[in-house]
């Protein structure tokens, strides 16, 4: 049973990572910096609970703030460039964060062991959950409570005017400017919200794995972050969730019996999916069709 709980935890955390990229993608920007914000969240939250002995929730709050502030600061120079340049700039930022933690050591003596991040060896012993007697089930429920909260917030945002404005900027910046939208402010806000979500996700990640190190936050994680919303489709937050379940649950765990072949299938399926459904699994057309399906049923049952 613990295996499934563990899997569900992974899905939850990766959903947060995917949603953080989702916010930015809505404005048409491809950011590969999300793994960097995720790493910042992980290290900040870990250091607060381990070294400063804070409880988890305020630690997560601070990690969200720090990651969000970083995202906002990065947004100003980075969002001046577009397309390929932005991809490269954000990759470089993500790598710079990773390399920073690769070289970052800050340890304190606790009893007979030393605690805290230790350069290339990483940050071990983030043992908040076991120390406070949380079971795997508790952790899982906590993670999903956060995921549900974030998803509900984004879902609501999506239906609001703010969501429509984000999409308008994503679709045609020139037209958006000409209808009076301040596109710089919109993009930086999206980046900041994305950073906050990635920060929370990273903070949780640090605590359930108990051991983080720089290699976990590389380019691969950054590409996963954008892969989820792109594969799932940008019309809806549930697309991202669907893609995380598909990738983490089905491709990575479900196909374990295939051994080596699983990894081959993984890349191949992504290529195939993009060829067949370039706008993602749940695109706007699919959502509208679903909506019609429901509404026409309702009308029929009313009659």
């Amino acid at each position, binding site marked *: 049973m613990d295996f499934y709980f563990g899997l569900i935890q992974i899905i939850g955390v990766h959903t947060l990572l995917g949603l953080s990229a989702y916010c930015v*993608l809505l404005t048409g920007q*491809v950011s590969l910096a999300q793994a960097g914000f995720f790493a910042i969240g992980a290290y900040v939250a870990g250091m607060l609970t381990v070294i400063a002995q804070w409880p988890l929730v305020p630690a997560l709050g601070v990690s969200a703030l720090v990651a969000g502030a970083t995202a906002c600061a990065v947004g100003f*120079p*980075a969002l*001046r*460039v577009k*397309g*390929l*340049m932005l*991809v*490269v*700039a954000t*990759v*470089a*930022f993500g*790598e*710079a964060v990773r*390399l*920073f933690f*690769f*070289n970052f050591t800050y340890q304190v003596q606790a009893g007979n062991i030393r605690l805290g991040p230790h*350069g*290339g060896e990483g940050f071990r012993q983030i043992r908040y959950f076991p120390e406070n007697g949380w079971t795997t089930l508790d952790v899982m429920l906590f993670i999903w409570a956060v995921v549900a909260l974030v998803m509900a917030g984004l879902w609501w945002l999506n239906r609001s005017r703010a969501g429509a404005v984000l999409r308008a900027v994503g679709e045609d910046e020139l037209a958006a400017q000409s209808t009076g939208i301040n596109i710089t402010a919109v993009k930086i806000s999206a980046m900041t919200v994305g950073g906050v979500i990635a920060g929370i996700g990273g903070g949780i990640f640090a605590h359930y794995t108990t051991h983080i190190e720089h290699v976990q936050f*590389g*380019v*691969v994680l950054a*590409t996963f972050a*954008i*892969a989820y919303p*792109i*594969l799932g489709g940008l019309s809806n937050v549930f697309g991202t969730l669907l893609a995380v379940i598909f990738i983490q649950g089905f491709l990575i765990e479900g196909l374990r019996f295939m051994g*080596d*072949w699983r*990894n*081959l299938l*993984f*890349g*191949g*399926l*992504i*290529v195939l*999916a*993009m*060829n067949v459904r*370039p*706008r993602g699994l749940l695109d706007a057309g699919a959502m509208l069709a679903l909506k019609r399906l429901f509404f026409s049923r309702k009308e029929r049952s009313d009659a």
Partner: protein
Amino acid sequence: MDLLDLIDAVQSVADGVLFGATYALLGIGFTLIFGVMHKLNLSYAAASIGAAYASLLILAGIEAPAIFVFLMAAVAGGVIGGLVYLIAFKFIPLANPLATLMSTVGLLLLIDEIIVHSTAGVPLNYPALFSDVIIPMGPFNLRGDLIFVFALGCVCMVVLLLLLYRTKLGLATRAVSQQPIASELCGISITHVNVLTFVLTGVVGGIAGAMTGAAIGMLSPLLSLPLTVKGLIVTVIGGLGSIPGAIIAGLVVGGLENFFQFFRGVSERDLYIMLLLFAFLIFRPGGIFPTTAGRD
């Protein structure tokens, strides 16, 4: 710092500049594809490494001279380049840049995994040319294999520049990259130009992959991600769309990499390269040679 350290430092930077020729070639590849398609091909460096692997595979069991391996890498690169276009670009509508980006990411993972799968993840030795030659120059020693890699890179660049600026194919390529619709109206088939660009950049990539293998002495799928990142950085620092820029940036990044490695250690090395990129993005976002944006 005494004199011996200085000599070592200069030596190491010189080695880096020579190796930088591979970065330059990859940068050119990224720039050319972006110029013609206005799309990012993230699988490019992985495909280049894949081509180098394929050259080993083709020549497995045959005692062939190393130069032949390089030739095969170029051929394999071309074939893989064509395949990449077919798989990750051909059938995805132009209006969906995110989808092509993602499909090239998928392809990157796929190529890496094919390599891991067929070699069980064990790095393979790659033949080097003139590795036993050492040219002493005063207090410095120039490694024969690196000189060969550098020379090969230079030949590649010259041939590529001649191809782009002295042939009809090059003219068509440049036309498509500047005004796709107008070129099509002039009777240039965009699809043909796209395929040719991918094959051409594939050949260049194959050679770059072989050069990497020869310079390091081995091949590993772990090379493809760092090469992707370095190639992209070179593209941006050089100025998107500028081939001379990519060449200079490639050599500079190669040299600086070893410079920082020498003075700050291998773990901090790349951090400074990233900072260099940020400096460019903030102070000179157009790169060394900014291309003037055309009107549409």
